[in-house]
């Protein structure tokens, strides 16, 4: 009984630690969200123009991929609790693969931006009237999606680690779902906002 209580206390402490870390992550992304909001308020037309330059189809496909991956991650946690080790491994590999599909599509998008000259500082050939405002939008876009992609890369690494070594899956799942939540806000802010503005 004592051992069981100690185990529960340990798990709750670990989960609280991850929640506190995620709160600092909200602040990290929050700084970028705030910078985006400020410049969007100052340059609404240029930001809408920039938003329309993104590939909504790829953005939507990536949203679906990440949401499904959250489902498989939740399934992994439930399988681990029921002691189904084989199923845990299968759904964790599926989760990691979905994460890699997301990153591959994101890389494809970046490649398109590079070819179209929409990368500030590296390949910038956009020359419409509001080119400077569009450049600010693309800066915000690369900063936000780039930081998100770094987080997802780390998350994929952790999931692959958990496939081969026993870890606390609940903690890992919290991080994975958080990365999903960030993307859920990036979709309307970056891809959807320009269509009606």
């Amino acid at each position, binding site marked *: 009984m004592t051992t069981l209580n100690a185990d529960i206390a340990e798990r709750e402490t670990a989960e609280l630690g991850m929640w506190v870390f995620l709160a600092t992550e909200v602040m990290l992304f929050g700084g970028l969200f705030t910078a985006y909001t400020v410049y969007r308020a100052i340059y609404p037309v240029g930001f809408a123009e920039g938003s329309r330059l993104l590939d909504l189809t790829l953005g939507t496909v990536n949203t679906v991929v990440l949401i499904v991956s*959250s489902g498989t991650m939740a399934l992994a946690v439930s399988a681990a609790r029921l002691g189904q080790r084989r199923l845990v491994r299968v759904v964790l590999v599926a989760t990691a693969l979905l994460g890699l599909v997301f990153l591959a599509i994101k890389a494809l998008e970046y490649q398109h931006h590079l070819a179209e000259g929409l990368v500030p500082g590296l390949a910038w050939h956009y020359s419409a009237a509001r080119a400077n405002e569009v450049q600010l939008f693309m800066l915000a876009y690369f900063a936000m999606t780039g930081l998100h992609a770094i987080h997802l890369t780390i998350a994929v690494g952790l999931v692959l680690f958990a496939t081969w070594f026993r870890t606390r899956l609940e903690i890992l799942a919290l991080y994975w779902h958080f990365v999903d939540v960030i993307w859920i806000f990036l979709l309307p802010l970056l891809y959807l*906002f320009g269509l009606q503005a």
Partner: protein
Amino acid sequence: MTRRTYLVVDAAVLLLALVSVALAHTDLHGFNAAAALAIAATKAALIAIFFMELKLAGPVPRVVAAASVFWLAILVVGTMDDVLTRAWLPIPGK
């Protein structure tokens, strides 16, 4: 939570994402951004409550989660009240 719950929640979040994309193609007369953000917040809440298990968590993780949203609100609102009202007063040398 049962697998059925996970499946229903995941399907709901997926559906909301597609609704959000469809709404972006419709003119809501100035309410497009508000609708898109409301849907995103609903999706985030579903994930936090069911997938991140805030539903089963004790009061302390819930407070931490709520505090992170509250701090974010302070950051955004505290910045935007300056940005949006700066032009209101004709202060020389501004």
